[in-house]
């Protein structure tokens, strides 16, 4: 499937059965990212197919305080 990783909009082709597997394949923590398909946020158990087009949104921000 086609995966766009924000904010840089880096595009990758990844094979993964579920959203949880996708994050694992990308080496990303589940609590630090959201996976979005269209306008829907997906839970980690959602099954994905080769024709899916999803975005990975980082949620961590940091700095001083």
């Amino acid at each position, binding site marked *: 499937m086609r995966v766009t990783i924000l904010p840089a909009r880096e595009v990758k082709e990844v094979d993964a059965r579920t959203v949880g597997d996708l994050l694992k394949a990308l080496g990303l*923590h589940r609590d630090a990212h959201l996976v979005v398909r269209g306008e*829907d946020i997906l839970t*980690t158990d959602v099954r994905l197919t080769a024709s899916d087009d999803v975005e990975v949104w980082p949620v961590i921000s940091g700095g001083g305080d």
Partner: protein
Amino acid sequence: MRCHRCRKPANVEIRRSRTAYCAGCYPDWFRQQVQDRIDHERMFRRDERVLVAVSGGKDSLALWHTLLQLGYQADGMYIRLGIGDYSRRSQAKSEAFAERHGLTLHQVDLKDDHGFTVPDLLDTRSGKPCAACGTVKRYHFNKVAADLGYPVVATGHNLDDEAATLLGNVVHWNTDYLGRQGPVLESTHPRLVRKVKPLYRLSERETAAYAIISRIDYILEECPMAKGAKSLAYKDLLNALEEEQPGAKHRFLVGFLKEGRAAVRTGGFDQAADLHECARCGQPTTGDLCAYCRMADRGRRKAVLKDAKYGRQPIAGPELQADR
């Protein structure tokens, strides 16, 4: 996964409580969590005007949005930090949010009003201005709130921010800071307003989900000056732990606030006893000049040197104090 409330397909999973919510039910759950914390910690009353510290990011805009949805009187405040395009974009997001909802957004411009920017405050050891940037924000949010008569400043600090701060303070055994860390910092001086963190038990992921579902247009990119910041390393460590032990961050922070904080010795630190007014700006401090005014002098010196290097006319600020 099904929504805990309506059984429709879920969109947001809350692993620590083994629940999930659909996009329709989630915002209501989120707002209830915030309301519960405001009430439980007695953060502010409905008749009090709240000043929300706004950065253009998901946390502060989600907080502002939530407070308005809950019926509170909340105005915003944005500080133009002068971090290049990042600051321009975050300012635009903050202004667009205020305009869209017909809200008041107060602004301070560091360069125009005070003669320096955050990049002028780079720490020579760490190469980062993050700690100084924190001082800048605390100073101006407090000063504007005190000047304009707001009794309380609300910030978007979330569970991840607070757990990372706690871990950092434990790693360095900053007992003074540990003793003071919490969701409410009461006013201890007429010029110090109460500080509250209504999102402190909601994770960054949950706040981002609220912002996305509520169609809040926030700045997604990271502050370019925060790359390599210690707080990000602590968050990464905590998220690795969370991966194996869902709820670990929550237990770490909430356990500390319930059990650990009272047991921490504050080393005799008593903020209220030693406070007097800064000789220059009048804000509460324990020294002759407050930490902000000393830091601002350093920033202005660097700004003057930088302006001279590039042949620019320096912006006039207060007379510089001799370096200490």
